[in-house]
């Protein structure tokens, strides 16, 4: 029996640039 026969759910990903906008950190360098 194959342990991973269940189809996985595709997680849509933002682009690298879009991801930057979601930055969760406070930028220490910015005023």
């Amino acid at each position: 029996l194959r342990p991973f026969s269940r189809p996985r759910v595709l997680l849509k990903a933002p682009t690298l640039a879009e991801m930057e906008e979601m930055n969760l950190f406070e930028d220490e360098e910015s005023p």
Partner: protein
Amino acid sequence: RPVNIPRREKDFQGMLEYKKEDELKLVKNLILELKPRGVAVSMIPGLPAYILFMCLRHADYLNDDQKVRALLTSVINSIKKILKKRGDDFETVSFWLANTCRFLHCLKQYSGDEQFMKFNSSKQNEHCLSNFDLTEYRQVLSDLAIQIYQQLIKCMENILQPMIVSGMLEHETIQGVSGVKPTGLRKRTSSVADEGTFTLDSIIRQLNSFHSIMCNHGNDPELIKQVVKQQFYIIGAVTLNNLLLRKDMCSWSKGMQIRYNVSQLEEWLREKNLMVCGAKETLEPLIQAAQLLQVKKKTDEDAEAICSMCNSMSTAQIVKVLNLYTPVNAFEERVSVTFIRTIQNRLRDRKESPQLLLDTKVIYPVTFPFNPSSLALDTIQIPNSLNLAFLTRV
């Protein structure tokens, strides 16, 4: 009598459990504040990538898509952030290139996609992601790896560039070859003081340093080959460009010195088992220019031989070298205008760009061939020095 029975270690599934609120602490300790020269030295190569992937596996196991997304976003942004902060440090960039690639390889190796499972052990197959398909995130990570690679090349260039002209052209290691300096030619000195002058040895030492850093960080052998090819391209292009601009570099003896230097670089490739990475080929225009300085340049037969020998140089470059060629010793002669005309006529039908100088900023396209690991995730232990005690092995 008490018997010392070794306790069987708990069976782990190769996952790391973490609380949602510890996600920032995780990326802070493992990415933002980790010094490649500090605790990272004694770790197994790629350990941060494995740890992050084991955390991701746990979020996947919980079937918590928000936790998976949040972790991936934090990881990617933290890597970008550390590279923004320390992007001029070769070690930091090499370290995160190795770990980003390892993380990407893990996402493939444990994706459940058969094409990436060929080399997995049955235990590794049990560690595949069970709920989510992260194909799109793999693309984002691959884009990130390309950015880091380009940054690594820039970083390497900044270190190497100041050494090239001095080490490849100006510094003479073959004693007594150059003989008398061509009259009327000023000996150009670089802005570096004599004791700071770079030699071919400085270049080779620097290549060794780049190579050992990249190996120690666990960068893939195929990736290291691409970096070395790019390094050799830069060395060849900067050297040739300077030769094409400097009369004092266009003599028979400089040809000899350049050929010797190139042979040392080839020897370095051989030592490192990198002869088939395309690096040597990038030096071809420089090798031909050095040969051009040394061959006879008089008869029609000489012209024919030069045209077939210099197939990696453009007509503009060949003509320029011939024009700049400066006799140093009595047995050498200046190249006649008629000879140069003959060469130009012979090469008239070549289809090529009229550009004289090589573009030293060109970066060859990079690829990250899949490189699965034989390491079993359930055997990975986290050193205390990483300050990740809030993670629980599952």
